[in-house]
């Protein structure tokens, strides 16, 4: 009964076995199903680039009606929060050091008198630069407020003299795609991107390393299964799981965090499949250079960290030095996050992103080819 080897029977056998093993492994199931949801929620709630209610110390040396009025109006918009009053510089330093306050607003003595005498006055804003983003937000809020205050003082004075105020140029920001500047619509695509690296790259790399470690790989290689079908069969379930994870995170993102769905889901799906080809290819490549699961895990991690940092998920690529920007053009993660943000947030169509999809396809095919050639070489 030597049945002629039929590739479809073999392929199905590999897929079935892979699914059975995955379903039985609680840790992997956790990694594939629960971890994505946890990540979505954690990233969605915890990562917020918006700052308000920044604790600010008030150091009012003037203690005049005018200085109190300025402080009241500056704090009214909610960006800054009153974190206490003091007139001692030592207290300011302590509070900034302990983190009880992130900024201090120093109004000098004689402020009201200076206004009355029509002399220039200076207000000092002390900032904790430990968190640059927050410092920028506070500085912006303070200078915006005092700029407007100065403008209205000028107008009042001119009006008192019967002179019409001169025309002013005013910039009116109108924010598209994410008008309320919420962080989750920006971060959730990032979560999807990071997640796929973990579920597909790490799981594939470790899966093959485990077979090598256990000796089952050799046992499979003496069967007439062609290595290509073995690889395809091993990757298929994770391709499906990866797409499922994307759907899961996207659903959670839309429902919980109001991520907009402006573009075509078919484009998102296409991008996802192409991207997963890349991450699976990297996983395979890693598995051909690692002997043990531990090595595979470490190698996967060593790939994932820089790949994510150099993708634009966290920080804009334009802010990187030029040579690093060049490096990012070889990073498939970058193209996927660009596709996701363009399609989901801006409703971009195929004409806008086709070359990124093409890049993903190119990387995917190249990685898979190199990985399977290396795999072939190592087993033959």
């Amino acid at each position: 009964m030597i049945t002629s080897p039929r590739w479809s029977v073999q392929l199905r056998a590999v897929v079935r076995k892979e699914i059975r093993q995955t379903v039985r492994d609680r840790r992997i199931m956790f990694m594939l199903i629960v971890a994505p949801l946890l990540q979505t929620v954690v990233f969605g709630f915890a990562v917020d680039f918006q700052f308000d209610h920044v604790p600010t110390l008030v150091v009012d040396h003037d203690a005049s009606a005018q200085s109190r009025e300025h402080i009241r109006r500056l704090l009214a918009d909610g960006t800054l929060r009153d974190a206490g009053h003091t007139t001692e510089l030592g207290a300011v330093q302590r509070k900034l050091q302990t983190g009880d306050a992130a900024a201090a607003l120093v109004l000098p003595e004689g402020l009201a008198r200076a206004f009355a005498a029509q002399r220039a006055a200076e207000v000092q804003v002390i900032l904790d630069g430990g968190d640059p983003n927050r410092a920028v937000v506070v500085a912006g809020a303070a200078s915006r407020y005092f700029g407007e205050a100065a403008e209205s003082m000028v107008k009042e004075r001119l009006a008192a003299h019967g002179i019409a105020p001169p025309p002013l140029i005013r910039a009116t920001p109108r924010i598209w795609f994410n008008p309320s500047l919420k962080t989750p619509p920006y971060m959730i695509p990032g979560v999807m991107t990071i997640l796929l690296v973990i579920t597909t790259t790490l799981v594939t790399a470790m899966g093959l390393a485990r077979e090598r470690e256990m000796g089952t790989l050799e046992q499979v290689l003496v069967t007439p299964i062609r290595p290509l079908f073995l690889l395809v069969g091993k990757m298929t379930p994770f391709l499906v799981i990866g797409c499922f994870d994307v759907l899961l995170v996207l659903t959670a993102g839309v429902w919980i965090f109001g991520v907009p769905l402006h573009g075509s889901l078919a484009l998102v799906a296409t991008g996802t499949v192409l991207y997963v080809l890349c991450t699976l290819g990297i996983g395979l490549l890693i598995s051909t250079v690692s002997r043990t699961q531990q090595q595979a895990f470490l190698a996967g991690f060593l790939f994932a960290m820089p790949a994510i940092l150099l993708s634009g998920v966290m920080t804009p690529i334009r802010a990187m030095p030029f040579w690093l920007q060049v490096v990012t053009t070889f990073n498939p993660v970058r193209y996927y996050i660009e596709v996701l943000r363009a399609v989901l947030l801006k409703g971009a169509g195929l004409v806008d992103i086709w070359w990124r999809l093409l890049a993903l396809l190119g990387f995917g095919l190249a990685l898979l080819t190199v990985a399977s050639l290396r795999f072939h070489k190592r087993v033959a």
Partner: protein
Amino acid sequence: MSELSIEAVHLSRRFGSFLAVDDVSFSAARGEIFGYLGANGAGKSTTIRMLCGLLAPTAGEARVAGFDVKTAPESVKASIGYMSQKFSLYLDLPVRDNLDFFGGAYGLSGPDFAARADEVLRLCDLEHERDAITGSLPGGIRQRLALGCAILHRPAVLFLDEPTAGVDPVSRRHFWRLIRRLAREGTTIFVTTHYLDEAEYCGRIGLMVDGRLVALDTPAALKRRYVPGRVLSVRGRNLASAAASLRSRPGIIAVEPFGAGLHLQVAAENWNADSVAQALASAGAQAVEVESGEPTLEDVFLAVVARPREVRHD
């Protein structure tokens, strides 16, 4: 197809500057149990890996089940079963899923396969373990499952690479009953082992030393050739120094430590049990007991390994 299931002709394999298998030639007939003995690193596993199509030979040729391992490795793989020294099964899956996977890997499916899987479970006495997780089973049962997975597709040739390493004696006996039954039914068995008592089950034995096949024959012929004369097993105290003085006497062919005692190989015309006992006692040994015994394959193995490589016996 000839009646020869395995034919190796001047087979060699080099790893860098290391010649793991050096110009090995032999053949095995259909239904034969062919034993392959040698120390660790002698080239046994490398030979098996070449014959299974896992490793390409550096030189020479081999045909297995009528197919050339170089040009038709896939056909070779479809006609052989292979069981490695580690029982390479999916330990996280139940017994039936392992059978299911390896059956599928050999392209088996449908009701024919289901019937065959049941038959193999019966043959390997695994019917009660069908749903047990493989990793929870003791070594002896896992080993039978590994054998079951290797014979699902009724291979013409079965390669066993130290199949009984680390298995208890009862399971080993059970296992060998199965192997002999498969051989009677026409499967050619190629087996490497460390257990020289097991090697007695083999029809013919090849002995590997440093990558070379230095002896090849039936167990009985090997014993006649390499352990001529009479074998005496000796027990007693202070044997080591007494034996040293005996070594130079005429008619003493070999003195080998064997367990707590000695194995002496002597020319039958010069020596018998009594005269050896006397000689040892006068050389200072105490409480000497001498028994004449049959040469074992262990004697053969020690004789061949100790001997400088010269004999090529094809």
